[in-house]
């Protein structure tokens, strides 16, 4: 079985209701109801599971069907759902279900996705099924209290799913790591779990993006995530750009991104090399990004924001059209922009460098930022080699003992310099 590049949300999906993260009461209510069908048709023929995304509603139904050994007949938002279509599908399923004594569960997922016109009459048809079904019918939506569902609701057993606590999510992540044979810091898992705000699916996605291919995952590897907002969608956007076949398709990705153009640029810039491996394609794509960047510069200097359209052309269509020889194979994870990650690391060191930079600035007509990069390396050499010269410079720049210690790199040596000072 080639699981190497499978999405972990699928690969490590709970197979049994007992493995599901959180919501024990809801799961028990649901499972009692499903089991009660073996003793005859219960009062409510449909169960309506609702709650925020990614917390295991669909998984619960799948796992329970697996536990009970019944077939699951499923329809979700990606299927066409007019009244006719639903009747054809559900009507059949419910009738057959009765013949085999409830050996089948009908699942209508993503009810929120029922749109006014295209799925016309859909809610009415579903309500009809909920009233007359002869096998368990399960409905799933993010919110049960949408006005469209008022009538439907009264025929359903309402079961609310809540966000599982971070601790539970972390436990699940840990299980995934064990199966993937990855050593992981508790703190790192806690961090990912907390950030997901109960969305287990996105937590597992995050974990995969961060940990796939690694043997160890430390807190440092994940802490930069704080820069990121919920960006499930960014992966789709990147896919549209890097694997786009038409210019229009690639350009459209920009509208779907919930990050600004500069951030999207960083994502594309980070991920292009791993996905366009043929040298010619790569050079082509990097040149497109370089040109996009040139136009960003032109916007800056002219303040004419209408040039943004060329930035977008180059960074989307320009990248998409670069693909000529690279073959698509396997699932390559998208990575968070490394440049931004790097900025969030070694904060303490940069803070120290900058504070020395400010001391230099006061004397040397140079910005602290630049001094910390351009002058500081030389100071380090001087401080390591020549305690006398170092002491005089330290006094002149008014460096404190911590700064001196940073520059020499050891406590003992710092003391020699301080003795020179007094």
């Amino acid at each position, binding site marked *: 079985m080639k699981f190497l590049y499978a999405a972990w949300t699928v690969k490590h999906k709970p197979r049994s209701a007992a493995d599901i993260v959180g919501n024990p009461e809801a799961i028990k209510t649901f499972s009692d109801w499903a089991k009660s069908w073996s003793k005859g048709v219960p009062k409510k023929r449909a169960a309506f599971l609702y709650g925020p995304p990614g917390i295991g509603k669909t998984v619960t139904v799948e796992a329970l069907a697996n536990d009970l050994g019944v077939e699951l007949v499923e329809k979700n938002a990606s299927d066409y759902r007019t009244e006719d279509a639903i009747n054809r599908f559900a009507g059949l399923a419910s009738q057959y279900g009765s013949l085999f004594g409830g050996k089948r569960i009908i699942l209508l997922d993503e009810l929120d996705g029922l749109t006014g016109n295209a799925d016309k009459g859909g809610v009415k048809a579903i309500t009809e099924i909920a009233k007359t079904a002869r096998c368990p019918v399960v409905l799933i939506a993010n919110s049960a209290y949408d006005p469209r569902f008022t009538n439907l609701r009264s025929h359903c057993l309402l079961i609310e799913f809540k966000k599982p606590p971070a601790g539970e999510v972390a436990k699940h992540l840990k299980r995934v790591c064990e199966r993937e044979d990855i050593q992981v810091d508790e703190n790192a898992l806690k961090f990912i779990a907390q950030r997901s705000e109960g969305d287990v699916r996105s937590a597992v996605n995050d974990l995969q993006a961060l940990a796939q291919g690694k043997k160890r995952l430390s807190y440092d590897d994940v802490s930069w995530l704080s820069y990121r907002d919920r960006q499930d969608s960014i992966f789709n956007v990147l896919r549209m750009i890097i694997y786009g076949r038409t210019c229009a398709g690639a350009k459209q990705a920009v509208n779907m991104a919930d990050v600004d153009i500069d951030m999207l640029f960083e994502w594309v810039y980070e991920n292009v090399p791993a996905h366009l491996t043929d040298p010619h394609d790569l050079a082509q794509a990097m040149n497109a990004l370089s040109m996009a*960047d040139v136009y960003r510069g032109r916007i800056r200097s002219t*303040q004419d924001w209408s040039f943004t359209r060329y930035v977008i052309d180059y960074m989307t269509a320009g990248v998409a059209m670069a693909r000529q020889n690279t073959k698509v194979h396997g699932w390559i994870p998208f990575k968070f922009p490394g440049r931004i990650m790097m900025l969030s690391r070694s904060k303490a060191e940069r803070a120290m460098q900058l504070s020395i930079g400010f001391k230099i600035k006061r004397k040397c007509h140079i*910005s602290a930022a630049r001094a910390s990069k351009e002058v500081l390396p030389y100071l380090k050499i001087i401080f390591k080699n020549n305690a006398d010269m170092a002491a005089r410079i330290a006094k002149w720049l008014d460096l404190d003992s911590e700064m001196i210690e940073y520059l020499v790199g050891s406590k003992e040596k710092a003391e020699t310099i301080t003795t020179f000072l007094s």
Partner: protein
Amino acid sequence: MSFEMWAEKYRPKRLDDMVDQKEIVERLKSFVKSKNVPHCIFAGPPGTGKTTAALCLARDLYGDGYREHLMELNASDERGIDVVRETVKTFARSRSIGAIPFKIMILDEADNMTSDAQQALRRTMERYTETCRFIMCANYSGKIIEPIQSRCAPFRFTFLPREEHDKYVTCIAEGEKVKLLADGAEAIFEVCGGDLRRAINTLQAAASVNKPVDAKLVYSITGRANPADVQRMMDTAMKGDFLDARKQLRDMIQRYGVAGSDIIRQIHGEIFKAEIPEPWKIKLADIVGEIDYRLVEGSDEEVQLSALLAKLVEAGSELKK
């Protein structure tokens, strides 16, 4: 007060003391003579005397009390719009007391100002021309918005030529009683490429070892101070590992603060030394030139240079065929 860092100690005090940039110095002297200074942009690579020229100009203009008529702001540290609205404006609008009716504001590293701040600045420059003249120092004038550029007299600073550089460095070595050998001075020029601040810092760091300063010592110092192993990065790219090459580039720029213009200058030098077919050398030089120009226009250093690395990857794969 004695200066302990030589780059500061030997910074020229008067326009007459300045080495090189002759034409610029002449024009600045004429400003002093007529006691009038326009808004200026001093553009050019680091360590070529932009800030020094501005300070010398002020000292020649106002005399030793020049500090009272001058404000120096560093746009890299204080680059937001609030600084322009408050600090700069307050300084610009107050009248100067003395023979010269205006003050001078030096905006150093002005190319790091946000464009919002630059927009705000353009009004201030216009409204308070009578009381304040601006000198903007920048590495890339392309990063300064056009409306400001059009209000300023442009001055282009260039790297010091070899003779001027050697003269200055030798002079400092004598002043500090450091034994500087001829190949040492040559090595300093080779690695610093006419950036005088870096040259002097290199000299001082080398002198701290308390040995005669020769080429070997200079290279070992700069190897540690400036870990821009451009050759290794180029090799990595030519072998086809773009991601590793880009990582090296990122380290140079972000962790060690190597300037993009330095890196590209070194790449240009390496190309003609590299063992690749002759026609490829000129092909690559063409690309290097294009990328260099894009950098000067004010683009992102890492993005531009990694586009160049990708070209090297392509060249490397062509060569294998």
